């Protein structure tokens, strides 16, 4: 009995060690496909990249997310819409903001606020 116990001990210790090491860090599958969205946000905030480059990159991230069956993260489509807005493509501004709202209804009030503002700007410039 004692002998068998001693024999199993290394295995037992190894299992315990593994449990210890993995203890708090239960790895979880990410909820979203991110691509380089955060560094795109940083570049935009710093103002060191034009909107066109951002548009190309984020459209790519959206494609990659789709092919992996993952959702794009909160804010990605709204940010993309804003970049289209900067380049004067109002239709794509609206389309992407509505996509943000339909994927994330939490954004509804803000998206409506932004669309209303764009509408007012259009009226003023006409």
């Amino acid at each position: 009995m004692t002998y068998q116990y001693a024999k199993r001990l290394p295995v037992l210790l190894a299992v315990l060690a593994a449990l210890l090491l993995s203890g708090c860090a239960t790895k979880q599958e990410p909820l979203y496909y991110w691509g380089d969205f955060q560094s795109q946000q940083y570049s935009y905030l710093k103002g060191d990249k034009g909107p066109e480059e951002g548009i190309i990159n984020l459209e790519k991230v959206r494609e990659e997310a789709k092919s992996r069956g993952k959702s794009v993260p909160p804010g990605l489509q709204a940010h993309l819409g804003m970049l289209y807005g900067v380049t004067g493509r109002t239709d794509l501004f609206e389309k992407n903001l509505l996509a943000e709202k339909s994927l994330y209804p939490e954004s509804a009030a803000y998206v409506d606020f932004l669309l209303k503002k764009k509408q007012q700007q259009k009226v003023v410039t006409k």
Partner: protein
Amino acid sequence: MMMKRIFTLPLLGLAAALLLGGCATHQPYDYSNFKEARPASILVLPPLNNSPDIQATFGMLSQTTQPLSESGYYVFPVTLVEETFKQNGLTSPSDIHEVPIKKLREIFGADAALYINVKDYGTKYLVISSETRVTAEAKLVDLRSGKTLWSGSATASSAEGNSNSGGLVGALVGALVRQITDTVTDRGVQIAGVTSVRLLSAGYPNGILYGPRSPKYLKDGVPAP
């Protein structure tokens, strides 16, 4: 054999104690406001910057979306939010932090706002080593009730896990080279990313709780079984 048993039992006991104690904290955070409010969406305001590096506000701001989203929250697009403030004449984080919560709720429709204060950001040349460190504090405020739901702080450093080796000259050269790459590759924002993950990820002791979009929603904040 008996000797072995005497040795191993306390060892197993110790391992078990470590296991059980691993995730526990000494002073549990009071989550009663958080649990009452259960926000679904978070508006991250441009962080205050108490460091000498002007990149700190945007560096930190750009790194907040991922940890909060992966914790189960809707995070408002930080770039658009910043533009909205700008269009309303608000460019400095300290002015933005003064905006009445009622107004924030009205425009953004967010359940909660996150107020961040960057205490430390950037690279210091310290004779034989250079270090990039980012330290930040954060406070989550419910925009419906005005209550503080959670607050915390975190730090990250490029020197973590670095060990001294290679003599003084090697260390000096290493420090110089590191100093260059630190600034050129914008190491600050990378370290800010680590700080942000530590500060704003759910599932850590005294951290924020999981949000509604996480499969772990409502399963945290209670002691592990």
